[in-house]
């Protein structure tokens, strides 16, 4: 227990440390000693070598998701990929229709983009997920209109880690001739993605969620059937005119290497992480009034999102200063709003406020997990002893029947 280095990082869904192998590779593409050339320089070896590195990386990313390298467009990250996919498709196909469908629990990079399209005159339906966090296909079907041009559903939710059935949604979209975009920032390297099978037209990826660098991402743009997009960034016509801007060779090489490693190690890594996550869950779940948020089966290995009833989230985070975790309550960001994702699942405010997201990853150890269990139990017990709500619960008072004076 004493040999655990503090604080313990359990926020792999926020970002991952770069794999050493990735960092080493990237360093080869920066200085005068390395391949610093502009991949767009066609007239000399510096450019050719950089271009070759970019194309190798493109293939490494494509291999992870079983796509054609020509379907890979480099961007600055998943946020840009989501913007390019959704705005790009909506603008290009606006003569076909005016309606988009997405889900209330999407990342803000999708929700804020569709809000912008609404300001431009598009109509957007925001589906409510079931209390498991998964969407009901019948409700999705019912939301489809004759003028629906695009459906955007995230593969894995960033807060609760649930995996949507994108295979079935893809079939539905293809049948109806609707473009299907998937935000896969949280699923790449964690869930098998085979784009030769999946009927997905556009898919967003991030480098820094897969032990690669920040500031790099990918948009998969399907070739057959071909999906057209209106570019958001204009300039030198890089990336087949879809995303201008000098390619960041070192970032791209890093994301490629990260994807290569993910492809090779994903299966064994997932097994190890799942074992640790289950150990953590079992260790915490023997306390009273602990609630799991989101479906347990349709969930990535590294995510555990639980609420500790009668304990307020921010004070819990404060007690867990030796852990790097996320709170479902955005109190810490000064907005005092509980998580919109947990609210969309129908969780009440108290449980939404008291949720903690533990996300485990490549460098999480069993010692860290055991230390975490002890620490969380101690903190929850201490805070419950301080909590008037806990006393009321223990005395058999139904907290929902009390008339609270909201302030």
């Amino acid at each position, binding site marked *: 227990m004493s040999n655990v280095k503090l604080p313990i990082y359990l926020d792999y869904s926020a970002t991952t440390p770069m794999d050493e192998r990735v960092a080493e590779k990237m360093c080869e593409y920066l200085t005068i000693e390395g391949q610093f050339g502009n991949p767009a320089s066609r007239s000399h070896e510096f450019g050719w070598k950089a271009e070759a590195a970019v194309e190798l990386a493109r293939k490494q990313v494509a291999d992870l998701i079983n796509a054609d390298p020509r379907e890979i467009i480099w961007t600055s990250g998943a946020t840009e990929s989501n913007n390019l996919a959704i705005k790009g498709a909506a603008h290009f196909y606006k003569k076909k229709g005016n309606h988009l469908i997405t889900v209330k629990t999407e990342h803000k990079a999708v929700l804020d983009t569709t809000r912008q399209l609404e300001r431009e005159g598009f109509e957007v339906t925001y589906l409510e997920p079931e209390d498991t966090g998964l969407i009901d296909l019948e409700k999705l079907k019912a939301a489809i209109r004759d003028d629906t041009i695009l459906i955007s559903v995230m593969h894995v939710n960033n807060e609760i880690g649930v995996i949507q059935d994108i295979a079935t949604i893809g079939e539905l979209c293809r049948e109806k001739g609707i473009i299907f975009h998937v935000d896969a920032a949280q699923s790449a390297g964690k869930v098998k993605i085979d784009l030769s099978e999946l009927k997905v037209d556009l898919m967003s990826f991030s480098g820094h969620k897969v032990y690669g660098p920040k500031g790099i991402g990918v948009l998969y743009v399907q070739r057959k059937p071909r999906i057209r997009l209106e570019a958001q960034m204009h300039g030198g016509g890089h990336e087949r005119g879809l995303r201008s801007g000098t390619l960041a060779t070192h970032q791209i090489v890093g994301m490629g290497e990260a994807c290569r490693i993910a492809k090779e190690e994903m299966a064994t890594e997932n097994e190890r992480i799942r074992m640790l996550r289950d150990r953590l869950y079992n260790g915490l779940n023997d306390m009273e009034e602990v609630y799991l948020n989101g479906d347990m089966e349709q969930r990535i290995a590294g995510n555990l999102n639980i609420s500790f009833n009668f304990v307020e989230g921010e004070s819990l985070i404060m007690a867990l200063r030796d852990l790097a975790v996320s709170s479902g309550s955005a109190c810490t960001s000064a907005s005092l709003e509980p998580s919109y994702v947990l609210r969309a699942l129908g969780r009440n405010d108290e449980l939404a406020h008291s949720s903690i997201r533990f996300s485990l990853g490549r460098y999480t150890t069993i010692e860290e997990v055991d230390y975490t269990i002890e620490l969380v139990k101690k903190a929850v017990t201490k805070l419950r002893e301080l909590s008037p709500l806990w006393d009321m619960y223990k005395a058999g008072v139904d907290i929902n029947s009390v008339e609270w*004076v909201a302030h």
Partner: protein
Amino acid sequence: MAYSEKVLDHYENPRNVGVIDEDNNVGTGMVGAPACGDVMKLQIKVSDNGIIEDAKFKTYGCGSAIASSSLVTEWVKGKTLDEAAEIKNTHIAEELALPPVKIHCSVLAEDAIAAAITNYKEKNQ
């Protein structure tokens, strides 16, 4: 968010946590709402000569809410009801160096004092 030393101290070592058995000389105030993320329960025990001789609290809320209520239990002890009623949220916020987003915690603590005093007075009309 960075917490002040005083908030951390009260949070780590909260003073006067607990429950006083209900009686005529005890005033209990409970303010806030679970949905808002904080609930404070403050109890005062008043002596025959009108002095608050004991105070206890329980709080569901963030570190600043816990610290505000812990501080208030220290401050009300030894005061008359009128003196305790003069404790304002600005005093609490200043003492704990609360940032603007946490001012509502000090307001809640002031409300808790008022609620406890009201409850005591209702019992002893």
